[in-house]
């Protein structure tokens, strides 16, 4: 069970990121809980300067850009191995 957080106020980029992350998790058959973090204070608690940010199990894996489905899959696999 992974916890995946999408950091971003709800902009187009954040929605696209969520879409990609959900699809990657579904394709891998990983069970994951998705949390959208939209309040700016909560976002700033993570050490990122620009949204969208992707956090897997408490670790920021990407910020300021939309990653490719392939790299999201790799991060999910890494998180599963260390969990």
């Amino acid at each position, binding site marked *: 069970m992974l916890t995946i957080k999408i950091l971003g*106020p709800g902009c*187009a*980029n954040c929605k*696209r990121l969520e879409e*990609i992350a959900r699809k990657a998790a579904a394709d891998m058959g990983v069970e994951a809980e998705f949390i959208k973090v939209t309040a*700016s*204070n909560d976002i*700033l608690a993570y*050490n990122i*300067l*620009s*949204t969208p940010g992707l956090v897997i199990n408490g670790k920021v894996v990407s910020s*300021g*850009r*939309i*990653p*490719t*489905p392939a790299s999201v899959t790799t991060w999910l696999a890494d998180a599963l191995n260390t969990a």
Partner: protein
Amino acid sequence: MTSYITDMLQGGLGNLFAYLAAHVLLCLLPAFYIAGAMTALIPKETVTRFLGRNTPRIVSYPAATLAGSLLAVCSCTIVPLFAGIYKKGAGIGPAITFLFFAPAANILALVYTGGVIGADLAFARFFLSLAFGIGIGLIMALLFRSEDAAHDKATDAMFAGQSAVGMNPAALIFLLVWVALLLAGTLKVGFLTGSYHQLSLPIAGAAEFQGLLDRLVPYDASKGEEGLSVHGVTLILLLAAVGLTSWQGIERIHEGFNRWTWIAMGLTGLTLLVAALNIQTDAMGLSLGFTGKFFGVLATLLALWWLARKRLTEDELRDWLWESWHFVKQIFPLLVVGVFLVGVIRVLIRPEWIENLAGSNTLLGNLAGVTFGVFMYFPTLVEVPIAKMFLGLGMHRGPLLAYLMADPELSLQSILILSAIMGKLKTWTYVGWVALFSTLAGLVYGAWIDGASLGLIALFLGAFLATLALVLWLVSRHTAHEPSLPKPAL
């Protein structure tokens, strides 16, 4: 009554077509790609790590302006970034400088102002924003320095601990070649605008087609209006094709590049090349003039193609295309609607009104420019066609600059958001300073346009700044006494 409505619609459409065909392509299209490249390829940390409070002022303030012009291309990204750097412990001074400089003098705004209104106003906008942005930053830092010190307890780690993320040198060159393309396409110098080779295409009916266009979009050259040419129609069609193929090729780019991606890029190049040609209609058909611009654009496009294919990583290429497309989707529709409405409104406003209010460089005229800028909210860049309309209606260039300085900085909406981030007092202080400085900028620039000697302007500006410095010094002496209350022992 019906003729009135037809007039307005024709005004709007005429303005829109003339705008799409004539002005945007060689400046706005490259500007979107440059903006995308800046967002995607420049790591934000490289610039913002200089904004921490431990950085000496001589570094942090210029870094703030640099960050402003490089990172926040659209005003919608400025406030979140400002909130980020301010809450993460940047001093209020550099943060304010960043906030002030970014909307007025980012690359899109400057290029667009230069292309539509004139290079002189673009330079004035840049230099005055630079001087006043740093000035307002320093003033705010001084006024609120006790609170700023309390804010200091917030962690500075964000800025101190950042490792310098390097930028791919190829990405930097890529960005510079885009700037070269922009300059080749927009600079009005003889060797770029002159034609080196003429080619006649005997297309029957070209002259008739032009006649039809002139009837559809009637124009009055004496009012500074431009009609629609065959060249213009070609460009509008190409632009539409670029839009459609980008929708297919770039909208889902994260799932991989497809055929449409490459077609969209090819069409973009083609559009820029056609825009750089000098196409005239004559009795024989069309005559194509291969200008210096054309060869400049061709050379830079080839260089860009080579860099994109051989030197940029796939991730960089994808992020760049996505961000550029993102800007186009976000800003272009607003511009189209804005330009159309400006054309409609232009029919309604009588030139006498503008001339009476702001036809000359007076204090009242400049204040009117600033007030209009603060209370009217226009989406990013729409302020430029509006400014062009005012210019056409007889507004003096001084009040026009005052308006251009105030409009992107302040709107009721941004004032509300800012007061949520840094408090009402700081926000209204900031608003007051921006209004004052914008009025001043208009007056100074207007005086220069009217032919006042630089020495006289410098004298007045110097006297004003000296008075300001004196007042601030008194204020700071006054506040300096307050912290002499017993300090908590550390």
